[in-house]
């Protein structure tokens, strides 16, 4: 079996195994897995409205997944996507409701604010990694909590002690009458176009530019990169900044499209952490991220239908997602199995 085929088979097998484990969990806990998965299916593809909402859910997942994947490709593990997304969400919502500008200026400004906030949140761990050799995983985890508490405090400040900001001006909104009409008044918004455009941008950066080559080279071997005259520290910081900006854009999708405000959060949104799963499943390629985001976004949104239609708690889908990550991460075993399997076939 060719290497490429095996690489593509690992995520597919992981997804199937994850769904099987999910079915077993349902069976053991006394639920009907067929009824459960049917409810999941209807929750994703049931009618125009659910399809619209599913696409809406996929949008931030694409950006979060891209952020993780981009960092991965440059040798960094950005667990801070969650925090970068939260600050981006706040920045976009704040610009959205506090300013009064024509749409051509207001909307791009709000989006840029989100990207800038996310980039700043990515810059800190990037700088610390480059300057002090601090491992980015721990710093980004800590930055997540700093982001959560800081934005909560800021929301209370700008709303005079309330627990959510005002609704953004229509001039900053990504909502679209056209897409809403098309999907039976779901909250589908133009963000999906931005997300797909960013996939293209990231692909171009990584595959077609010198800068992207340098970023990847530094990720693969920073000694070799240093020796060949690349500025390793600059590339590390730049990678985290770009990754953070992508995550911040994910926050803008929630701020300007889905919710049109930002509220005080008791805990994390989970989108950033699911972004890790998306990137892993997509093998850290821009195109793969679209598939990963589509799968996990659909599962997450479709699961909301499971309590109503089948009486099964929504958490079953998070269990399935976690199991899928386990299997993708343990790809070594699946590879081993596939190799044995193909060898046996050849022997026959």
């Amino acid at each position, binding site marked *: 079996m060719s290497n490429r085929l095996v690489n593509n088979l690992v995520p597919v097998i992981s997804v199937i195994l994850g769904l099987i484990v999910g079915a077993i969990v349902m069976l053991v806990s006394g639920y009907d897995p067929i009824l459960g998965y049917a409810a999941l299916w209807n929750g994703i593809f049931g009618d125009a409205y659910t399809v619209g909402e599913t696409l809406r859910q996929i949008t931030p997942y694409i950006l979060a997944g891209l952020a993780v994947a981009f960092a991965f490709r440059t040798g960094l593990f950005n667990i801070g996507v969650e925090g970068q997304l939260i600050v981006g969400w706040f920045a976009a919502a704040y610009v959205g409701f506090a300013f009064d500008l024509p749409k051509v200026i207001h909307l791009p400004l709000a989006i840029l604010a989100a990207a800038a906030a996310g980039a700043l949140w990515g810059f800190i761990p990037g700088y*610390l990694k480059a300057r002090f050799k*601090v491992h980015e995983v*721990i710093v980004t985890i800590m930055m997540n909590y700093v982001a959560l508490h*800081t934005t909560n405090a800021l929301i209370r400040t700008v709303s005079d002690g309330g627990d959510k900001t005002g609704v953004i001006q229509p001039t900053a909104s990504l909502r679209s009458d056209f897409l809403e009409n098309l999907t039976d008044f779901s909250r589908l918004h133009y963000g999906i176009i931005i997300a797909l455009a960013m996939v293209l941008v990231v692909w171009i950066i990584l595959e077609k530019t010198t800068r992207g080559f340098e970023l990847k080279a530094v990720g693969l071997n920073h000694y070799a990169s240093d020796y060949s005259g690349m500025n390793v520290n600059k590339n590390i910081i730049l990678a985290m900044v770009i990754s953070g900006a992508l995550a911040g854009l994910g926050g803008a999708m929630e701020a300007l499209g889905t919710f049109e405000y930002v509220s005080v959060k008791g805990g994390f949104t989970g989108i950033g*952490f699911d972004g890790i799963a998306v990137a892993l499943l997509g093998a850290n390629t821009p195109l793969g991220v679209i598939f990963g985001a589509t799968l996990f976004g659909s599962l997450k949104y479709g699961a909301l239908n499971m309590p109503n239609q089948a009486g099964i708690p929504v958490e079953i889908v*998070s269990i399935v997602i*976690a199991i899928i990550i*386990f299997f993708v*991460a343990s*790809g070594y075993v699946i590879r081993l199995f596939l190799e044995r399997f193909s060898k046996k076939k050849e022997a026959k």
Partner: protein
Amino acid sequence: MSFLEVLYFLVPAAIFYAAPLIITAIGGVFSERSGVVNIGLEGLMVVGAFVGILFNLTFVQVFGAGTEWWALLAAMIAAALFSLLHAVATVSFRADQVVSGVAINLLAIALCLFLVKMIYGKGQTDFVQERFLRFDIPLVEKIPFIGPMFFQNVYGTSILAIVIAILAWVVLYYTPFGLRLRSVGEHPMAADTMGINVSRMRYIAVMISGGLAGIGGAIYSQSISLDFGHSTINGQGFMALAAMIFGKWHPLGAMGAALFFGFAQALSIVGGSLPIIKEVPSVFLLILPYVLTILALAGFIGKANAPKAIGTPYIKGKR
């Protein structure tokens, strides 16, 4: 309030909030000293918190007063078994340790909430009747200054935490087992050459970390939150992780760092009734532990050296 009264009030509260962090952080020390990164501490604490509450609610009629201690035991066993997943993935299946830890966290919270909804039919459990209570330790409580600070109104869990920390220090630094465990984390190939079973040591270390995180979670849920819901263990596990790093992967260091974080938490919760502190916006107290960890890592508070072989699976025969 006089300064002394503030101290008598704050110090026990700090130790009380620190207890789950200390125990979980010590668990982290075991796992990471053996070379396995354990970001899954958060998830393992969630399992412990849930099983603790579940056991407490289910068996309160059987055990009566003291149920909470039996619940600790149950939580320890459950979380140790749960951590086996992390061990299998990272040691045997050579999975990326950070990714596996992330999966542990996702799985733990999803599975526990799933079970809560299945068993109780709602998003969080009822409040437990039996919880950890304060008591005075006879004789020593009469000592001036130290008595009211450390021996009056103490929680059994605070004592447990400190005992575990000292025990862990002795085990890791003064027993053959501890030496082997640390050697596996520093140079697994050398350890393997000396006849130490690297995989087995790592399995044991990860399960110890699971068991301790389970105890930590159950203490938290049975003394602070008193029920279990989606936000019960909101970042406590990551805070413990921070304490472990801040404490430079040393049990007593981790205890010190956890005590400090507990102090910050106590301040942010009870600080509103204290002079001076109530002028400080609570957000600064909330982010203090995290910011301090970042500063500590950046080397402002001394260089922290992680175990050498951390994060890499050991593959026999590979150089």
